[in-house]
Structure formats: structure tokens, C-alpha cells
């Protein structure tokens, strides 16, 4: 049975140790925060100058001046702080973010990520902070479905879509498996959903999947 979105978020969350500073991309990655218990102190950063985000506010307690990069209302936990955009991206681009988790269109076996434009002729693609995060975070993980809605593999030998960042993805959480991306080797299966065979997983991937010896 494939992992649900919550399963995928929970799997990624379980791999985040206390003390890491983590930036979660908009969409599916955002769900990860809900799966990290507050007592495990993980510091969530948002590009718009928020360090130390807490859970969503109670209804009626939202403030329009406190949002995350996905423009959702958030809270600040004790120990959190605000800064301006250049300082916020200094954290990101200077290599001070332990982990960034992004969504993806494709991940290649060399760690390339495509997640911002669907073709070279895409009119007005929106990059946001994805290229900064892709190039700057200490670790880059991707959370995405294993294939597109019409069944095309998103795990590929070489990205067909325009790249976001080169060679930086080190792990992918999909609805079928968790894959490491190992330099000089490629995708290595780390975990696989119950009832999904390695053959099926390989068939739904457009790059060779390795298994640990």
C-alpha cells in the first residue's frame, strides 16, 4: 500500500534530529512540521525572515503579519526571531540551514532537482527561493509522488525539466519508497512501502535503483 501524504511527512520527520534548522518548501514538505513533536526542538525557518516557527495559530488568533513562505498563518515559538530578507537568505545561501525539504517534478540519479518550470518555454515560471535553498542548504531532501498523475516516472537518469539545483539532493521520500542519492552510484533504496515489490518500484522509476548490500 503506498504511503499517504501524512506517512511521507512522518517518515521525513522521523529522520530529523533535534537541533537541526530546517526549511520546508511549500506544499507537501510543509506537512512535515506537524509530524515533529514540539518537545523535539527542531527550528523551522521560513524565507520571509522567520526563524523558529511554531504550530498554526488557533482559529481567530491569526495575525496577517505572521505568515510562512507559503503565506499560511503561523506562530513563533519561544526562542524564535525575525530578520529581514537578505539576512534570512544569508542563513540559506551561507550554508547555515541543516536541511531543506522541497517538492519536486523530477530528481535525477546525480542528485539534480527540477521543480520550478515545466519547459524552457514555460511562460513566467515562478522560482521563489527554490534555487537559493537548493544551492545553499547543507542537505536537500525531496518529498514527491513517485510518478506523475499519468504514471510517468519522476525518478530519472537525467532531468528533462529545467533544473533548480545541481547534484544536491541526497534523499527522496515518495509515496512508494525512500531513496538515498549516493554520489558516484545513484539511487539506493532505503525503505519501501508495504506491498510494493522492488520490481514494481524499479518499473515505476526511470533510473537504476540500487539496494544496500
Amino acid at each position, binding site marked *: 500500500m503506498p504511503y499517504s501524504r501524512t506517512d511521507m511527512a512522518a517518515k521525513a520527520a522521523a529522520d530529523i534530529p533535534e537541533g537541526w534548522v530546517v526549511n520546508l518548501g511549500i506544499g507537501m514538505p510543509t506537512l512535515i512540521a506537524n509530524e515533529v513533536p514540539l518537545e523535539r526542538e527542531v527550528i523551522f525557518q521560513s524565507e*520571509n525572515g522567520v526563524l523558529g516557527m511554531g504550530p498554526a495559530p488557533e482559529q481567530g488568533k491569526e495575525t496577517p503579519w505572521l*505568515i510562512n513562505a507559503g503565506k499560511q498563518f503561523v506562530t513563533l515559538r519561544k526562542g524564535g526571531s525575525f530578520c*529581514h*530578507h537578505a539576512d534570512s537568505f544569508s542563513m540559506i*545561501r551561507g550554508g547555515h540551514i541543516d536541511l531543506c525539504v522541497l517538492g519536486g517534478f523530477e530528481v535525477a540519479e546525480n542528485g539534480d532537482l527540477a521543480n520550478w518550470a515545466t519547459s524552457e518555454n514555460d511562460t513566467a515560471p515562478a522560482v521563489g*527561493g527554490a534555487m537559493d535553498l537548493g544551492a*545553499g542548504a547543507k542537505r536537500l531532501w525531496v518529498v514527491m509522488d513517485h510518478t506523475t498523475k499519468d504514471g510517468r516516472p519522476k525518478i530519472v537518469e537525467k532531468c528533462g525539466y529545467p533544473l533548480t539545483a545541481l547534484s544536491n539532493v541526497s534523499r527522496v521520500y515518495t509515496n512508494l519508497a525512500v531513496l538515498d542519492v549516493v554520489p558516484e552510484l545513484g539511487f539506493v533504496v532505503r525503505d519501501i512501502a508495504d506491498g510494493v515489490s522492488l520490481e514494481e518500484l524499479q518499473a515505476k522509476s526511470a533510473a537504476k535503483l540500487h539496494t544496500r548490500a
Partner: protein
Amino acid sequence: MINKIVNSLAEALSGVKDGSTVLIGGFGSAGQPDELIEALIEQGAKDLVCVANNAGTGHVGLARLMELGRVRKIICSFPRSANSVVFEQLYREGKIELEIVPQGTLAERMRAAGAGIPAFYTATSHGTLLARGKEEREFEGRHYVMERALHADVALVEAWKADRWGNLVYNQSGRNFNPVMATAAELTIVQTQHIVELGDLDPEAIATPGIYVNRVVQVDRGAPWAP
């Protein structure tokens, strides 16, 4: 006595010229200087280059300015939002230029303009479409792209509190691009929810010192729950 406080939005926007490059603070609706944008629409300047994180939504604010044909070019990181209908139509029709800049590079280019740095190198966008036509260079085995400072004529800023010297503090994530933009423009115009006496702002917590501010106008954004 230094007094940067002006009495009306019209006065705040006076003198903005056709052809200006205008920085517009805010991320989402947080820290967005809505009243100043409306006042810019009233003021009439056209042929503008607007720099903002997004390309406007709905038919108000920046989107309205574009719809009126007053924006020649937009420089932003995320043009396609949930409701960026005006931009998308103008862009399809070839009626507006677009320069997409990674969000961190956008912030850093304005910071560089404010700090006297004409150009810098960054790993962001290396090997991507957005690095096309840009100088690349290797430092210690890693590849970087050269980016240029982004100077502007005008910056529109939303602050939470201001004093007559133009010192500013912001409200939570309303800070975002505002302090950076304030440093990069010749004329920095601020709308603030509160005006306080000189000396009332904590000198350790002033996020934009008045040196970067030219005009301050008070507007009521009506948010009783905010600090």
C-alpha cells in the same frame, strides 16, 4: 528639527517620475505598503519598473497599476501566484517585460546596492536557465554566477512604528524585504501604523535607521491584536 513625517499620501508620493524603478516591500500581504501603492496609482507616474516578490494578485494594488498600463517591466521571484490574472494576461500579450530573479538573489542584489557593492558572486542559479547570459566563475572548485546590484529610484515600505527621524521597526514577518529595499533607493517612502516620539524606539531594536528613510506617512491598517 529633522522631521520626515508628511501629512498625506499624496505628499508622500509627490515627485515620483515616469520611468522610475520602484521597489515594493512585502511578502504576501505581510508588510505590503498597500496605501502607498494606491497613492502611486493616484499619483500617475508611468513607464515604471516595479520590483517586488510577486507580480500582484486580483485587480488591486500592483495588479491594478499593471492593468492601467503603467508598468513597463516587473522584476520578481514568483510572478505566478494563485490569482495573478492581470500579470499573466499582460505577459501573454507581450505588454509587460519580466525578469525572474531567485528570491535570495533579489534580496542580495538590493542589499548590494545599498552597501556600495556593484557586483557579487553566488552559487544560486548556477547551471540553470536563470544563469543564462551571466558571467560564471569558479572559486575553490565551486561554480558561481555574477550578479549585479539592483538600485532604484523609489522604495515603498510598510513599517509598524516610526519616529520623525525615520527610524523604523516592523511587525513580525512584515519586516521581509522592507529594510533591504529602504537601503537601495534614492527616495524611500514609508507608511507606518504608528508614529512615536523620538527616543521611544529601542535603539537596540531599530531595524531601519532613519538614514535610509526620506518620508513617513501614518496610515491606519486597523489591527487591534497586533503588538
